[in-house]
């Protein structure tokens, strides 16, 4: 493996300084042991929390020793305050001992990503993919844990660098049954950067380090300092230290040196930091200087200090070693307590500190760390330094540390000379981008807004406007985003790249809002034009995919365009999976009711997204799979995909995705005819999509933010249960909105068939007829059996409502012929129901019974209870032989017989190829019909009937 000159040095800590015996922490130790002795509870975590000096690290280190005795694999890191900004410092430590065996076993993209993060490979910035790094860590943990339980130990998690923190959180969140134990220590209060405090989603046991008892304090100072204290002094020590062991030891040390009076009447001693400060101040100047230098470095080593200093650092540090302020582990220097490092750094004045950072900038290898030192060394603008810091900021960003990158970029902007205003603006712009990526959207927007005011109209301002539009888009203000993009477009001049960005933004904005499909198509064409000029295959692929979408929605044949986009797909594989042309392809296949092909495409995309940990793409992919299965009649699978989609959307924090996923789930329950569940789930979806009370007469905003399917679900369930006014209340405005938008793709206006049925039932034949004509036109144009079938069924319903029963029957039978080949069982059964209803009206009893029987069987197989009940009622109205309300249908009879044979509902479900819910529903009808109240009574009844007594 090539290791370039600026590779981050591997930090093997070798034999660790042994943990000191724990005094006064017996209870905590027991918790630690029982945590490590319960591998069945893993994955889980133990978090040791407490203020500085409470002994967290000592307990944490004991945990590692205990785990080692129990043969756990130990991955450990001890971040320090200085490196909180250095990308992947902690990850490098964690992986260091296993790197050689773990890396070669990883899939190529993950291995490259890890190598890039840890800078094991030069000039491979393209490989840096935060999700791939997380997935790689997950893979490593899983592989290790397959053989031996693993302890992932991180001290001072509040100082975890951003990249490592995100990677750890990503991997730990995905652990399911692996024996991985997190062992974490976190400082509370005093100096902790609480806003960056890292947490894990693993089930966590918390150990809070409380104060030591008086006796424990005495035992501690006796053990460590050989101090024997009389009761009054001991009491005073305990009182002053408030049971904080480190403070107690420092107080004792000062008392032993004659620098502190512990008697009641003496003035209050300084606090812990003050005490440490005086201890540092008492050291000779060269020692103080060397300590400050060490404290300013992320990984101080004797050799690097020697390079920074001309003097003999080893000699200068003599006192610091003998007083155990620092200790040496091979070449590496470590402060015995983080507070000592802070005190050593605080002990030099600002001029000295600048000088010290200037020296360090000359000796550290890491680009980011060097930039930090350069920035801290400079007190006035300097273009040379600003440029270096800017470079480091870009690198930090690519290494997945946007917040550190933004901080560095802010430094670069600060150091930019006032006359270099273009450079300054570029740096502030980059800072805004990084802040946005780091989730600091408010600061990002403020920076951009300030820049827009400073920038004269033109390409640069257009770029800023486009960026502000993107922020708005992500902030879910689609309309605001579109308006800004239009403004940007006017100033974009001849910049092809900028044009592509703006035009594509406009396409998606307009498509999502569904208010100008034709306009979206024009922008898509323009995006294609500029992408071609730009000569970027990836940009062209995306633009073509967007164009294909607009074509399909406008009712045009998009196949040629999507094929062109797919041919360029390899160029997009480095982008988020949602941006691969296959996603648009799957979407179009689904809309075109080619469910089998769509399922395959989305399954491939699901694999890609999982491999990269691309959660935000997974949610929409799973939502599509849910709809596909729902249409294909596999409701249980549809529900499980929808649940997974909801989970993924929650994880990636995307509200519209979550609303859309819940909408899919609501639709599954609507098809089942479960009114209560549909209302609840659709309600949740609409709350997310709409924020506030949803008014069915104004579906626009909610539909644009993921609520469309929830509205359809509410309409559909009402229709299935025969509540036509409610069905129309939801479906009417929704269909009107979609049609007004100019959508000509029938797969994007699926609720149309439902709305027609509701309208006809409400006696609004004219309106129903108008919508049916629209469906018929779309059916003829596309030639799709599914659309033709639903159109003919709708026609049958309209004709029947007008009394043209015989023509209606012909249409309804035609619908069945179309739908038999469409692979959409609900639509088929609904058409059979319509045929049966018409036949009944025509008094074709035998035919009606057969048609309704087919419909009932279809609904029951699906688990569509609402529709099934409606069909049963219809059957009951036929009268005569087969329709008595106490006679069992074939399905009910079979279920009852299987109960009598002693099968459970689950077994019956699998024997009859129906869902357990359908079994329950059938049995509850059986109970009513035969007049029994329990399963036992039913068995007795069936036995009697079959003569078994």
């Amino acid at each position, binding site marked *: 493996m090539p290791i370039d000159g600026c590779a981050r040095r591997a930090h093997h800590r070798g034999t660790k300084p042994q943990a000191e015996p724990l*005094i*006064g922490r*017996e*209870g905590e130790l027991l918790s630690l042991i029982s945590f490590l002795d319960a591998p069945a509870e893993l994955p889980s975590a133990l978090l040791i929390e407490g203020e500085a000096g409470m002994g967290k690290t000592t307990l944490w280190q004991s945990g590692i020793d205990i785990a080692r005795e129990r043969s756990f694999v130990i991955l450990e890191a001890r971040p320090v305050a200085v490196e909180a900004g250095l990308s992947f410092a902690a990850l490098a430590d964690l992986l260091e001992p296993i790197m050689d065996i773990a890396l070669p076993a990883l899939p190529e993209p993950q291995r490259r990503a890890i190598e890039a993060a840890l800078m094991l490979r030069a000039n491979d910035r393209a490989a840096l993919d935060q999700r791939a790094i997380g997935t790689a860590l997950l893979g490593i943990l899983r592989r290790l844990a397959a053989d031996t339980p693993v302890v992932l130990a991180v001290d001072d998690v509040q100082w975890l660098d951003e990249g490592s923190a995100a990677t750890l959180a990503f991997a730990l969140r995905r652990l399911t049954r692996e024996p991985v134990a997190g062992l974490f220590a976190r400082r509370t209060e005093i100096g902790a950067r609480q806003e960056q405090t890292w947490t894990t989603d693993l089930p966590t046991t918390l150990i809070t380090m409380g104060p030591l*008892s*008086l*006796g*424990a304090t*005495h*035992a501690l100072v*006796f053990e460590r300092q050989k101090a*024997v*204290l*009389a009761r009054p002094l001991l009491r005073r020590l305990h009182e002053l230290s408030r049971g904080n062991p480190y403070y107690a030891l420092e107080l004792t040390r000062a008392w032993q040196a004659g620098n502190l009076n512990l008697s009641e009447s003496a003035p209050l001693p300084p606090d812990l930091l003050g005490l440490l400060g005086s201890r540092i101040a008492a050291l000779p100047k060269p020692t103080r200087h060397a300590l400050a230098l060490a404290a300013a470095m992320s990984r101080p080593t004797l050799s690097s200090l020697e390079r920074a200093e001309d003097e003999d650092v080893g000699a200068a540090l003599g006192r610091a070693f003998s007083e155990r302020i620092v200790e040496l582990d091979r070449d590496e220097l470590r402060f015995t307590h983080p507070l000592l490092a802070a005190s050593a750094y605080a002990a030099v004045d600002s001029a000295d500190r600048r000088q010290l950072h200037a020296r360090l900038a000359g000796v550290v290898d890491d680009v980011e760390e060097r930039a930090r030192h350069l920035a801290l060394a400079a007190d006035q603008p300097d273009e040379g330094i600003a440029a270096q810091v800017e470079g480091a900021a870009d690198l930090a960003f690519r290494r997945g540390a946007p917040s550190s990158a933004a901080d560095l970029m802010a430094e670069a902007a600060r150091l930019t000379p006032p006359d270099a205003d273009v450079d300054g603006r570029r740096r502030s712009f980059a800072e805004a981008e990084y802040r946005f990526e780091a989730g600091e959207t408010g600061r990002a927007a403020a920076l951009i807004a300030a820049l827009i005011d400073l920038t004269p109209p033109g390409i640069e301002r257009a770029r800023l406007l486009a960026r502000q539009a993107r922020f708005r888009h992500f902030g879910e203000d689609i309309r605001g985003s579109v308006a800004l993009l239009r403004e940007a477009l006017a100033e974009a001049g001849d910049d092809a790249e900028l044009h592509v960005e703006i035009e594509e933004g406009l396409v998606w904005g307009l498509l999502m809002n569904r208010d100008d499909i034709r306009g979206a198509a024009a922008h898509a064409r323009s995006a294609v034009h500029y992408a071609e000029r730009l000569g970027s295959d990836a940009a062209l692929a995306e633009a073509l995919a967007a164009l294909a979408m607009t074509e399909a929605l406008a009712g045009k044949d998009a196949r040629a365009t999507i094929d062109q986009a797919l041919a360029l797909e390899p160029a997009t594989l480095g982008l988020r999976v949602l941006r691969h042309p296959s996603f648009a392809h799957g979407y179009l296949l689904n809309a075109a009711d080619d469910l089998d092909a769509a399922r395959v495409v989305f399954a491939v995309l699901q694999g890609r997204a999982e491999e990269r940990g691309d959660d935000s793409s997974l949610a929409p992919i799973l939502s599509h799979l849910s709809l596909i299965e729902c249409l294909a009649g596999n409701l249980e699978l549809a529900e499980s995909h929808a649940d997974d989609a909801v989970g993924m959307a929650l994880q990636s924090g995307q509200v519209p995705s979550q609303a859309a996923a819940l909408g899919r789930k609501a639709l599954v329950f609507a098809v089942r005819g479960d009114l209560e569940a549909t209302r609840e789930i659709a309600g949740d979806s609409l709350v997310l999509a709409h924020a506030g009370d949803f008014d069915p007469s104004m579906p626009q905003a909610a539909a644009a933010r993921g609520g469309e399917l929830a509205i359809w679900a509410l309409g559909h369930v009402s229709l299935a249960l025969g509540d036509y006014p409610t069905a129309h209340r939801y479906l009417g405005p929704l269909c009107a909105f979609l049609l007004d938008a100019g959508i000509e793709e029938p797969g994007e206006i699926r609720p149309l068939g439902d709305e027609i049925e509701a309208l006809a039932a409400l006696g609004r034949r004219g309106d129903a007829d108008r919508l049916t004509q629209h469906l018929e036109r779309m059916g003829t144009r596309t030639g799709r059996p599914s659309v033709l079938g639903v159109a003919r069924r709708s026609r049958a319903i309209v004709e029947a409502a007008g009394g043209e029963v015989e023509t209606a029957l012909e249409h309804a039978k035609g619908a069945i012929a179309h739908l038999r080949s469409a692979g959409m069982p609900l639509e088929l059964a609904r058409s059979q129901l319509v045929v049966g209803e018409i036949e009944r009206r025509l008094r074709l009893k035998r035919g009606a019974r057969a048609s309704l029987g087919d419909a009932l069987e279809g609904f029951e197989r699906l688990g569509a209870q609402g529709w099934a009940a409606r069909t049963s009622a219809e059957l009951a109205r036929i009268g005569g032989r087969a329709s008595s309300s106490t006679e069992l249908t074939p399905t009910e009879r079979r279920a009852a017989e299987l109960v009598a044979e002693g099968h459970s509902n689950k077994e019956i479900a699998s024997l009859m190829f129906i869902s357990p819910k359908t079994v329950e529903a059938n049995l509850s009808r059986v109970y009513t019909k035969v007049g029994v109240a329990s399963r036992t009574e039913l068995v007795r009844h069936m036995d009697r009937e079959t003569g078994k007594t």
Partner: protein
Amino acid sequence: MANYLVESYMPNTTSLDEVERRASRAADDLSVAGHMVRYVRSIYVAEDETCFHLFDAESADMVRLASDRADLRAQRIVLAVEHEPL
């Protein structure tokens, strides 16, 4: 013979039976060997996680010896005066 108070850190202590047994035995063993030391009693202060043991002995060193044999982990041994109630 004088009274000596031994102070030792004893976390999570619920019963002193075992401690008393060890202390008496250590003192008895030393007495058999001809030394003057006798274990009197112990008092446990739970809040401080501290136990005080009272010995009669010829010297503090003898008490240290007895404490070590009894594994009392003494942090401090001081001369004391035991006052019998009137």
